[in-house]
């Protein structure tokens, strides 16, 4: 059970949270101008990084706010959290094979 530091409520147990996948995937302003491939990129494709990953979580059983988390997907170490719309803080980028 991870301990996730909600930027608003403080550190709470994982079962209070919901997962939103890759962060900073911006919904295209005018999808109709995209090719099928570009649209599929937005809807389906994932970085799915092994290592430092920027992702979105929501404190669903808490303040219900969405926020960003930088987590090492191999070790589950949480490297940083920050609010929606904020620029991601610098962290040690880890990647694994």
């Amino acid at each position, binding site marked *: *059970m991870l301990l996730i530091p909600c930027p*608003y*409520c*403080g550190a*709470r*147990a994982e*079962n*209070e949270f919901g997962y939103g996948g890759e962060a900073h995937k911006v919904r295209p302003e005018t999808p109709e101008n995209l090719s099928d491939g570009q649209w599929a990129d937005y809807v389906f494709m994932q970085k799915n990084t092994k290592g430092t990953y920027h992702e979105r979580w929501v404190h669903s*059983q*808490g*303040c*219900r*706010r969405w926020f960003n988390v930088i987590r090492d997907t191999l070790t589950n170490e949480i490297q940083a959290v920050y609010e929606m719309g904020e620029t991601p803080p610098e962290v040690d980028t880890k990647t694994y094979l």
Partner: protein
Amino acid sequence: MVEVNYRQVPLAHLGLASKIEDSLGDAGVGMSDRGFRAILNLRVDLAKQAGARESFEKAMGFTLPETPNTANGKDGTEALWLGPNEWQVVVDDNAPDAGTRWLQTVRQGMRGHFCAVVDVSNAQAIIGMTGPMAREVLERAVPLDMHPGAFKPGEVKQTVFGRHCGVIMHLRDESPVFDLYVRRSFAEYVWSYTRDCARGAQTDTAVLAG
């Protein structure tokens, strides 16, 4: 048209009223149905809505708590922090139209600010919990640290209760006295789950008055 009132609290079907005991006795946990209150959900971004803080204070006589996980209030009226732009305003007023009236009051008071005030008085059950084992028992249901040093009087925490059930916990004093706000359809689950937690903690529960 005359208003009739046949209101029922969410736990009405458990017939708790007839089971109320005078005191805790040997029980480690006292549980009660807090009955009707006016409950409003308030959404407003105080940082962006200039003067909203003051408007609220003017309308209600106290300020919205801005420290996360806390409550603030006055004379049976309080606001529980739920999130950076969300509060639950609770008024100890059990009149049938209390929700509507207080909704008007807050709405009026907040007029001119982008905000949302919604009456949720009927949407929640309020379960009171007290007794020397209350914290021990609740630690079976919620992942929060319930230690007196970690959950202090005046604090409000939202978390998951048992499986799939959200709860707002407000610790009123160190004795301890908790108010648990749960969605009304989950009320019976929370009530009986708590009793089972008490069984697990090898202690008894007593039904107390509101």
